């Protein structure tokens, strides 16, 4: 254990031992010298009177010499101990000093500043290290303690004072505190102070001395650590929350009534929920690790799979209601399937599939559609009665009606016609939905069909003073199609243009060939379709807001029917429209024509 320098010095002195005989020498040497000189004096007086007078000088010299020898002997026997002691003292001083120097060097080397506060005088010593730490010139300083007090950060000063008082009063065992000290440039520095009091035997503190350490780096590290700890803490919280979320989702997916499966990009099944196992008859263990192809049934049309891979390779969601899945027991069911690719950047990580047996729903849909079809048929008989009786009233078979009566019956007749149109449209929709309509292709002239529709619309065209531009230069002379279907397409597109274009407006109809398709274009400069409703234009019973206000007629079924016909025929329909600027519809039908389809019903 390191000993304090002072202790080392004391130990060395102790080892040297205390010299002895000094005091005796100091007492006896003068006595011997006194006795010697007294003897000499007595000889000088007494001897000449005796017979030995001649020996007087010799005796005196002999006695003086003896005296000197005794004293010298005494001195020589005592002196070496003192010389030795002096040497040891020197050693002790050197050892003490060098020990202290070690401490000072160590202090300086450690970067610790040293201070001493004299409680009596109120003066304090600050080592050069403290001064440089605070940005002052590099030498020791002795100043009033206030120099230090005034440098403490105002927020920390009361705490530091209290700590010091408590320690000096012995209420705390040590003085040790971290606080901020103002540097010469006004910045603050975090320091750690530790000190020890020097007390008198009664315990009253005399001096307080100690060291000051620059802990701003430590503080900074501490702050960084604290910040990191906080970050970690919040990251941990987030992770915990995420884990909770994942658990929630897992629970939700597990308890979903829809069959959910997750596969790798290669189709390997890595998760199925209980609903999936119930639906498909495979247990969890049987499904995991297998390829999702295990559900594939030959009843699914190949084009479904082609469409599926097109979507999935483009990282898009695929949805179908036309897939047939095979259970473990080889029974099949019609499924609604949605596949969502889960991607990260360019990479597809998983496919999440949600599947539902929709056989029953399809059956219900079919039953509903059949009901609509049946109801529509039943409606036709009373509609015929209204039509024919109002017709008879108007044709004067039973006498002349007055003007008002005639007008009323005309309203009944017109209302009935609208009802007939609606019923016919409903029938067409139900036939398209059920797939029961027939396509009977024959060579038709698209121009002729278009012209006959325009002839029918002539009264309205005249009434609204609208012009129709015909662009038939590139029209094929004949086209293989069901004339009724082509007629429905022209009828809806053109009558919509007439209906939804202001008086004096312009309509254009073009028939031509575009690539390997028959291209029909109908353009008007009418009311247009509001942007927000573009997505709904082909929905059943949809009518745009802006035209509903202008025209109460219209079933909202026309465009649905047209789209269904065009798509059944393998074609496409699209449009451009801007509100108040008009609308253009494009219909593209395969140039090869329509394919025959037998069905129980034709469209009307």
């Amino acid at each position, binding site marked *: 254990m390191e000993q304090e320098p002072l202790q080392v010095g004391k130990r060395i002195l102790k080892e040297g031992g205390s010299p002895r005989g000094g005091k005796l020498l100091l007492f006896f040497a003068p006595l011997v010298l006194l006795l010697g000189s007294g003897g000499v004096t007595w000889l000088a007086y007494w001897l000449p009177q005796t017979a030995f007078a001649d020996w007087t000088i010799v005796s005196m010299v002999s006695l003086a010499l003896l005296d000197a020898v005794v004293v010298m002997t005494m001195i020589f026997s005592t002196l070496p101990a003192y010389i030795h002691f002096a040497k040891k003292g020197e050693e002790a001083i050197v050892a003490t000093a060098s020990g202290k120097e070690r401490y000072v060097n160590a202090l300086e080397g450690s970067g610790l500043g040293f201070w001493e506060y004299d409680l009596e005088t109120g003066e304090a010593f600050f080592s050069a290290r403290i001064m440089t730490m605070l940005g002052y010139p590099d030498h020791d300083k002795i100043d009033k303690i206030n120099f230090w007090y005034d440098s403490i950060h105002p927020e920390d000063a009361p705490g530091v004072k209290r700590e010091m008082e408590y320690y000096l009063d012995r209420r705390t065992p040590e003085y040790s505190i971290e606080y901020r000290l103002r540097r010469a440039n006004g910045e603050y520095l975090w320091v750690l102070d530790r000190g020890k009091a020097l007390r008198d035997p009664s315990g009253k503190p005399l001096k307080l001395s100690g060291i000051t350490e620059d802990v701003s780096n430590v503080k900074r590290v501490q702050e960084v650590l604290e910040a990191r700890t906080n970050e970690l803490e919040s990251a941990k919280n987030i992770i915990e929350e995420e884990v909770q979320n994942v658990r929630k989702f897992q629970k939700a997916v597990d308890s979903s009534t829809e069959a959910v499966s997750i596969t790798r990009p290669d189709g390997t099944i890595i998760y199925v929920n209980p609903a999936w196992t119930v639906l498909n008859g495979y247990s969890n263990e049987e499904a995991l690790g297998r390829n999702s192809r295990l559900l594939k049934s030959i009843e699914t049309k190949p084009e479904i799979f082609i469409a599926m891979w097109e979507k999935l390779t483009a990282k898009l969601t695929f949805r179908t209601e036309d897939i047939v899945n095979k259970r473990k027991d080889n029974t099949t069911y019609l499924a609604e399937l949605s596949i969502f690719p889960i991607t990260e950047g360019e990479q597809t990580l998983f496919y999440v599939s949600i599947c539902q047996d929709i056989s029953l729903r399809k059956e219900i849909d079919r039953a509903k559609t059949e009901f609509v079809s049946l109801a529509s048929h039943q409606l036709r008989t009373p509609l015929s009665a209204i039509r*024919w*009786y109002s017709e008879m009233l108007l*044709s004067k078979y039973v006498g002349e009606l007055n003007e008002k009566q005639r007008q009323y019956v005309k309203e009944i007749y017109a209302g009935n016609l609208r009802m007939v149109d609606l019923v016919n449209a409903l029938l067409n929709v139900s036939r398209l939905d059920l797939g029961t309509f027939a396509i009977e292709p024959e060579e038709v002239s698209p121009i002729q069909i278009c012209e006959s529709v325009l002839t029918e619309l002539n009264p309205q065209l005249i009434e609204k003073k609208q012009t129709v531009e015909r662009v038939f230069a590139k029209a094929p002379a004949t086209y293989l199609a069901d004339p009724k279907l082509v007629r429905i397409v022209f009828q809806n597109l053109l009558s919509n243009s007439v209906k939804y274009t202001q008086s004096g407006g312009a309509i254009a109809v073009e028939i031509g060939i575009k690539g390997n398709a028959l291209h029909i274009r109908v353009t008007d400069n009418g009311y247009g379709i509001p942007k927000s409703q573009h997505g709904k234009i082909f929905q059943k019973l949809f009518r745009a807001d802006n035209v509903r206000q202008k025209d109460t007629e219209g079933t909202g079924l026309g465009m649905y029917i047209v789209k269904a016909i065009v798509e059944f025929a393998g074609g496409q329909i699209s449009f451009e429209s801007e509100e108040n600027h008009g609308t253009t519809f494009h219909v593209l039908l395969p140039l090869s024509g329509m394919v025959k389809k037998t069905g129980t019903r034709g469209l009307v």
Partner: protein
Amino acid sequence: MAEKQKHTILILEDDQPLTRALSDALVKNGFAVVTAATVEGGIKKLEHTKHIDVIWLDHYLLGTENGIDFVVKVKNHPEWKSIPIFVVSNTASAPSIRSYLELGVSNFYTKSDYDMTQIISDIEATLEKEE
């Protein structure tokens, strides 16, 4: 109109209000009208009426048989097979319409889509052509 010889028309229609409207309209247009609501009734009328020039036929009729059964019977009867038949129906399916046309009826109309006068004038035109 008095000089013009009256044509007799047989109406086979199950719905009474429609039959009445049709009879009135045809009478106003100078026809003699005979009606029936079943295939059996129609055949009886053909047998017992002196001469029937034209038949107005609905597809759906009372009884177990429908318009197609009636047309088959008429077309197989040597005396009746040349009587023009106009099928006017609200309920016929595409295959039945095709059957009617294949059996040689003069025309098919969806009832609710036509005024009576439109069909009557077609009938008159056909009868005039025959004379």
